């Protein structure tokens, strides 16, 4: 079950024609899919579209009622390959994943799909993970659309526009026999707003029906000579059909006056940012009515030469607002102007920075710069000649610490890396390759374990060059999400086949945790529609890896440390794999907290553990924190003139995972940690025993205190 539940919101997906839908972008997209008569949906989770997968999973009953098949695909390649159903059958299909990394994984299937062409509308919803909040390399999905000739939609970031783009996308796909990508940026996925709903449509042909009436046509197979025909078909038929459709339907939009000496061309997704800049310059009102002509590219590929040239007619200056690099759109539009022998001057990169997000400040500066060149008279006086003293705000950049993401309180991965750190102290530094997932946080302080990641499921594969072995063994870390996504085939069969002498540690936290806690093959949960509870170790044995150590409680730091040491030092040849399993604490807490509270209320016996630190024993060296980094393990300044350094302190967010005690023990740190178990609803026998113990203990304490001075303790 995923971290966030959309069960309540899923009710909104049943709204009928004329009713108002209010909610988040991803829910709006789901509703639009149903209104478009989609026949099958799928995808692979990852920010910013993780929640779209969660919504689909939570809406599975509704989907089934409508005759829509929902598939939680094994990875993005599997999701894209699923669109094959739209090649021969007139069924609309949609899949979703993050871009560009998901598109990278899916590219093989996407290219084949594009070559074959589609009969039913095929939509790939890409969550473009770019700019603030992004967790991946900063690249664009755009060139994938260009190289495979899929059409790319980038609608204005409001709910009505996004919803319209979904239905337009299907129509465009069918009109041009080409799969279409719908790109939504990080914030668009989570932007809230309203739109007027339409009735949900059952697919005209369901996938079940299609199975009863199978079709095939060798002309669609990507093999010579058909593949050459596909290329010609793309250029001669599908592309012109798409252009005609885009113009006729008016998918791109025009705002502002027709006649002006200047204009701005903007990617749909950047429209609101542009309007805000114009608003701040006094050139647009709050509803977006503006004095500057704006050509909005809701379709960023293909670009329509004629439409663009019409826009440029009579304009001396045109600014292109295109986020990211390289500047594909600007280059293409420049080439249109050049071929048309136009005298319109093109502005874009230069005024805008080549790399990085177009934040409010970047947009304002660039648009202001453009207007200063193109039409200085349009700018308000205050912009033309700023004359206001701003007070100097002290520079805090040296004061404020950075706050990168890290392991949550009680995370089961923390003890794994604490153990690795202890082994490192014994055996020295090792070559370590990491994968994608929460475990990658271990590359940051305090652990600083691992220095590179090559992609999802590719951690052990990234150590391929070292498979031959040497004096020390290479270590790879991979999560259970990565293992099932691509790791089993790309990383572990690679290790097994090449007789790698390396070590791989699989962090098995029962979920695809970093993407929001979705179930995967080895999840321990019961899932009505998915096959869970398939142990990773069994899969490893299946591909011939025999040195496998299963650890069922990662919090046992000493055992973890000894197992890692064994893997690094055993004379056994071949791959050595440690499967370190404990449930993601975020999900565990969410699952168990209500149960625990109910149990306490019902009078059942419950032990609630939490850790604490004796501040008089802690010496303030913080060695424990360097092996933990837990949010609940923090520092506290003491009001004691004899102490200089703050002491460690555990706040009430501690979930009693046990890591602190284990690390203090395994690393032989200090005796200041203690675990306190509060026993709710103790048994009568326990109470009697406790009374007896307390009486003796109190007597001993009073006796000793009677022979010495007692100093008022901290109160």
């Amino acid at each position: 079950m995923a971290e966030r539940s959309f069960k309540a919101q899923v009710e909104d997906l049943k709204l009928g024609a004329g009713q108002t839908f209010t909610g988040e972008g991803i829910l709006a997209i789901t509703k639009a899919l149903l209104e478009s008569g989609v026949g099958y949906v799928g995808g692979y989770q990852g920010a910013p579209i993780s929640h779209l997968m969660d919504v689909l999973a939570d809406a599975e009953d509704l989907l089934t009622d409508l005759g829509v098949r929902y598939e939680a695909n094994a990875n993005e390649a599997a999701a894209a390959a699923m669109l094959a159903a739209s090649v021969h059958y007139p069924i609309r299909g949609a899949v979703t994943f993050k871009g560009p990394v998901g598109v990278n994984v899916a590219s093989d299937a996407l290219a084949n799909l594009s070559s074959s062409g589609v009969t039913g509308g095929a939509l790939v919803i890409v969550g473009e993970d770019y700019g603030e909040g992004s967790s991946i390399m900063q690249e664009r999905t755009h060139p994938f659309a260009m190289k495979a000739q899929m059409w790319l939609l980038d609608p204005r970031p409001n709910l009505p526009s996004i919803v319209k783009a979904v239905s337009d996308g299907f129509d465009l796909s069918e009109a041009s026999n080409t799969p279409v990508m719908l790109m939504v940026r990080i914030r668009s996925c989570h932007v809230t707003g309203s739109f007027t709903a339409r009735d949900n449509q059952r697919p005209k042909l369901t996938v079940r029906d299609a199975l009863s009436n199978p079709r095939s046509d060798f002309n669609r197979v990507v093999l010579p000579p058909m593949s050459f025909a596909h290329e010609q078909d793309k250029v001669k038929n599908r592309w012109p059909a798409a252009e005609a459709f885009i113009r006729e339907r008016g998918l791109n939009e025009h705002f502002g006056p027709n006649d002006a000496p200047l204009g701005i061309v903007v990617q749909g997704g950047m429209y609101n940012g542009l309007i805000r800049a114009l608003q701040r310059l006094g050139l647009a009102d709050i509803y977006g009515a503006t004095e500057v002509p704006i050509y909005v590219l809701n379709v960023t590929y293909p670009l329509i030469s004629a439409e663009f040239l019409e826009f440029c007619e009579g304009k001396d200056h045109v600014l292109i607002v295109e986020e990211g690099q390289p500047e594909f759109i600007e280059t293409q539009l420049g080439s249109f102007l050049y071929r048309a022998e136009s005298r319109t001057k093109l502005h874009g990169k230069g005024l805008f920075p080549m790399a990085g997000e177009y934040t409010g400040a970047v947009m304002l500066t660039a648009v202001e710069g453009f207007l200063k060149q193109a039409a200085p008279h349009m700018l308000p006086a205050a912009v033309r000649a700023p004359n206001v003293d701003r007070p100097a705000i002290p520079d805090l950049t040296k004061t404020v610490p950075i706050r990168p993401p890290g392991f949550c309180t009680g995370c089961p991965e923390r003890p794994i890396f604490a153990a690795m750190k202890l082994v490192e102290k014994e055996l020295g530094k090792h070559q370590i390759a990491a994968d994608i997932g929460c475990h990658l946080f271990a590359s940051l302080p305090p652990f600083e374990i691992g220095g590179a990641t090559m992609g999802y499921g590719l951690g052990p594969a990234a150590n391929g060059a070292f498979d031959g072995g040497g004096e020390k063994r290479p270590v790879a870390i991979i999560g259970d999400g990565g293992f099932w996504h691509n790791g089993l085939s790309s990383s572990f069969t690679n290790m097994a086949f090449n007789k790698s002498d390396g070590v791989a540690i699989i962090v098995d936290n029962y979920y695809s945790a970093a993407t929001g806690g979705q179930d995967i093959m080895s999840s321990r949960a019961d899932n009505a529609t998915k096959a869970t509870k398939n142990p990773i170790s069994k899969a490893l044995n299946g591909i011939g890896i025999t040195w496998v150590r299963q650890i069922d409680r990662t919090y046992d730091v000493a055992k973890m440390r000894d197992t890692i040491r064994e893997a690094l030092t055993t004379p056994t040849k071949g791959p050595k794999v440690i499967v370190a399993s404990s449930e993601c604490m975020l999900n565990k807490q969410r699952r168990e907290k209500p149960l625990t509270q109910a149990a306490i209320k019902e009078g059942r016996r419950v032990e609630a553990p939490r850790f604490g630190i004796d501040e008089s024993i802690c010496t303030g060296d913080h060695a424990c924190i360097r092996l933990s980094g837990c949010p609940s393990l923090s520092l506290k300044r003491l009001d004691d003139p004899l102490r200089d350094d703050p002491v460690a302190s555990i706040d009430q967010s501690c979930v009693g995972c046990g890591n602190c005690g284990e690390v203090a023990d395994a690393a032989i740190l200090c005796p200041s940690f203690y675990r306190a178990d509060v026993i709710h609803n103790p048994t009568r026998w326990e109470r009697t025993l406790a009374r007896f113990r307390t009486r003796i203990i109190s007597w001993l304490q009073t006796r000793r205190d009677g022979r010495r001075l007692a100093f008022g303790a901290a109160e």
Partner: protein
Amino acid sequence: MTLHPTFDPVLQDPQLDGIIKLAILAVGGQGGGVLTGWIEDLARANGYAAQATSVAGVAQRTGATVYYVEMAPAAKGSPVFSLMPAAGDVDIMITAELMEAGRAIIRGFVTPDRTTLITSTHRSLAVSEKTVPGDGIANGAEVLAAADIAARRVIAADFDALAIAQGSVISASLFGALAASETLPFPREAFQTAIAKGGKGVEPSLNAFAAGFQAARDGVQNPVASTTLPRGEEVTGPAKLLFEWSTLVARTNRLPEPVADVARAGLRKVVDFQTLAYGRAYLDRLDQILTQDRAPFDLSRAAAKHIANAMAYDDIIRVADEKTRAARMTRIAGEMGAKDQHLLHVTEFFHPRAEEIVSLLPARMGARWAANPRRMALIDRLFNKGRRLRTDSLRGFLSLHVLGGMKGWRLKSLRHATEIAHLEAWLATALTYLPQNYDLAVEVIRCRRLIKGYSDTHARGRSKFDRVLAAIAEIKDREDAADWARRLRESALKDEEGKALDGAIATIRSFA
């Protein structure tokens, strides 16, 4: 709360008057999403068009996360809202942690012409602040001072503590502060309705809301969250001991004023550690320093502090004593919220090594054993393993109680001999510098701060101490020797491995 009424706005956009821009900067897990939802619902329920956005993804795993809301009266159509806050263009900035307020200021989201900054003053320390072996906590006062300059108005309080006191989370108390700030055109009741509509944990949320509202409207005494605990000074015990204690306290009262208060704290610590006689020995040592000191008595003041720390070293006996005191159990029960109807189990984590065992032996015997690797290996085999003791059980309590009572034995132990020898060598070193460089002597005294922790950590501290003192010896004749000594000590506290210290020592060597 700071107002800058005289400051003129840079740009006034009459067409924009309608849009209210509100940003929230929170640490993952603080409920920023819930707060955003309330604000949105509040706006929509009161005739406003609203749009909220957030940045999802890994930042939500304990990183810094931004939420953003825009709203405008829903009259003539759909306003075009921006999806992210822009520098210089935020009306209300809510930060759910003090350093996040600093981050908001750095990012330009807090400007004197328009921004009301609502911030919690509590700290959620970043990893980089916590891992420093010394004191790496960022300076919160600097952020508050900058906020006073950067914001049009500042509303600051420990909204986290206010919420926790009501059994709720900070999002609710911040929502209360937002209502009290009167920056949104909605009455208090409308805010409460938004919470009630949310449906989850409504009552604690409303209580935290009220607490936040009041703190924001009436202000609070101490805006910087207190991370310190006051220490009681009450002394109890048998009359005879109390009388002796009062004579020792009288001795400290006769000390020069800058030394007296530290000496009293030091005296308390060493007497608590051992006996009144041991306290007398402490004061005698301090007197020796004092005879060579002069006003303003920096040397004696530093000595009073560090001699006490050195004499009350962290041995097993002390730990066992601390762990078995009656006050401790009461304190733990309070912290853990254990009431009469509950039972409390307390588990301690010990891992004695041969070194610790041998250090308890009589000095000469212990030294002989410690020098015999085979014997040490044997002891390690017998004792070196993690031991968990339940101090609420009789067996666990008794073993520690007996150990904690071995104070008479302690003074004969190897550990005591080692510690006292180290103490005297250190003081002697400091005093040799005294005639030629007073400040250097003070700095050497302060180097005692480097020795802390147990087992490996303790050994590492010792070795840093030795290296710093050796490096000081090399530069003792320089005029700026004291300054370098301070830098060496501070660099030794910067990181665990002593990289910064290596650098500082390399610099010193380059002088030669």
